[in-house]
């Protein structure tokens, strides 16, 4: 797209939840703690936490960290939730009930099988009656979630939290060799006018190749394990890490698996 290159938003906070790491700070330190229990979903109220899938809990944890870091108002901040497959494990659980147990479905499992389950329970927990949405676009999910979030920020001059996550791959459907690990990452975006000078700013992602961004350095993402590197949400992790490390340059948001959307990080 043209006409958007100069438009930027500030990144006011980041958050992460993946097995072995509970926070972005822990991830940056690089020492995994494999004794950690699965994501807790501490942001959620007790009832919804009990019913939430591991993916919803991980997304809520990452969202919560980005929210705290950015100090945005939880009851009003807009939110975008991206996931390539959404509640895939919950869906497979329903299919097992249909085809293996030959029984009726669990009403609560059905209600939480929707792609926007995380968005719904986070809005309930934060008493946020404002804007939220959920979307997916396979390996372009991080880029398109950012596009949706940046459009909200630019069109309405308002902050927005963009959270992306995909749970461990349903290997029965994608194949054992293609299994990825659970990952949830969030970034808090603010309109440029509200961004402080020290914040990293990002441009509207475009599908132009990195070289079209001019002389800016192409950022090389940190090494991560293969199961993490093929998670459809990996681009959001690469962005959050680059922001946390205060790197500048052009970042591809899909590690080669999508259409090649890139964003430029600047001071």
């Amino acid at each position, binding site marked *: 797209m043209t006409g958007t290159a100069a438009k930027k938003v500030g990144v006011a906070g980041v958050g992460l939840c993946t097995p072995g790491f509970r926070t972005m700070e822990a991830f940056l330190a690089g020492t995994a703690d494999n004794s950690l229990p699965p994501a807790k979903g501490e942001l959620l109220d007790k009832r919804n936490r009990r019913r939430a899938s591991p993916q919803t809990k991980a997304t809520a944890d990452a969202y919560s960290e980005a929210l705290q870091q950015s100090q945005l108002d939880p009851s009003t901040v807009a939110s975008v939730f991206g996931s390539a497959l959404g509640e895939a494990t919950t869906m497979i659980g329903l299919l097992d009930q249909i085809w293996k147990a030959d029984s009726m479905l669990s009403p609560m499992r059905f*209600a939480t099988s929707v792609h926007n389950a995380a968005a719904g329970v986070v809005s309930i927990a934060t008493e946020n009656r404002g804007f939220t949405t959920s979307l997916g676009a396979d390996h372009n999910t991080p880029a398109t979630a950012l596009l949706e979030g940046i459009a909200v920020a630019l069109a309405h001059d308002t902050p927005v939290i963009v959270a992306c996550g995909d749970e461990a791959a349903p290997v*029965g459907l994608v194949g054992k060799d293609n299994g990825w690990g659970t990952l949830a990452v969030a970034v808090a975006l603010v309109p440029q006018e509200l961004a402080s000078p020290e914040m990293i700013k990002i441009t509207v992602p475009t599908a132009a190749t990195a070289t079209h961004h001019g002389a800016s350095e192409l950022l090389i993402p940190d090494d991560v394990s293969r199961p993490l590197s093929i998670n459809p949400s990996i681009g959001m992790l690469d962005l959050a890490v680059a922001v946390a490390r205060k790197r500048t340059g052009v970042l591809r948001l899909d590690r080669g698996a999508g259409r090649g959307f890139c964003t430029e990080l600047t001071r």
Partner: protein
Amino acid sequence: MFKQLPPVALTGYSLCNALGGTLADVRQGLYDGRSGLADSPVPVPFSTAAGAVTAALPDLPSELEPWSTRTAQIAMLLLGQMEPQLQKLRERYRPERIALVLGTSTGGADVTEKSYKKFVEQGSLPKGYDFWKQHTYGAVLHVVSELSGARGPAWMVSTACTSSAKPFATAQRLIAADMADAVIVGGIDTLCSMTLLGFFCLDALSDKPCRPFGHKRTGISIGEGGGLVILERDGDAMALLEGVGESSDAYHISAPHPEGDGAKAAMQRALNMAGCKPSDIDHVNAHGTGTPLNDSAEAKAISSLLGDEVPVVSTKGYMGHTLGGAGATEAGLAVLALNEGWLPPSLGAEPRDATITLNIPTTRTTGNFNRVLSNSFAFGGNNVSVLLRSV
């Protein structure tokens, strides 16, 4: 509070549902007051009516054959109806400035649930099943992108029953922020066992054709199909998208706020975004699913914000609740009301529920409709109200 955005031009739309595979078929069904609901073609261990698409669906071109699913075929049928408008769109804008924002709730669930049955029974997925080409959201996006020529960013909104209403808001934002010049929006869902069983287990499924706002309403009838809509910065508008209100109930994952607070907030925000007053609204295409709770909450919301004079119609008695396809379908029906000046009867609303005081026409009604709200509400407490104006 989201600020006011410039209106965008709606330059084309297409529909496909249980009433037929073309806009003309759907229009005629509504005009005749004919329901397309019938016994569910998907085998389930209970009785229910469903809105199945019975129109002949086209075969995808050979190069897209691996992506061939019922959803993709419906998408191709919908695109074919709009080809003249799509051609103008391609002439007017560079392909990368045309974005694609669709919505779905079920995605490829119909294909996967059948394939998974074989996996359970025989230990392997059927030959020809490809998760990435038939199940995921990217699959349908690829087909629509290839067939329409849109090469801008593409994504699928999935917020249950508001999935194809929210893309209208996204399109208005993308155009306002100069991130696109045009956006193809809409959405499609198809019938599958999982949704029928799921709503049955929630005690929200009607065994007979649904009766929105009626005294005898007992639940929803699921339908399939959807609609596609072209929204542009400017162009030969059939209607204007003036505003979209979006809200969250922050109340319950699957039940609406009993007083319809979230629904009312969505409608109020649509008015605010368009710079309109409640008295500017001439008609509401209600979400009107036919469940006792949903209709009661929506009726309270409409009554409290707009009063009891404005005609309110639910069209779900004609084609069922098309879930992720409902928002685009009903926005299309709102355009029909704006352009033709008549409303179909709200099927099933007689005998009336005495607690609902809205003006719900049960015969075909003519009038001058300049502004219409189209409501969509969803699991997760997600609410959308789309405000369209005549030109």
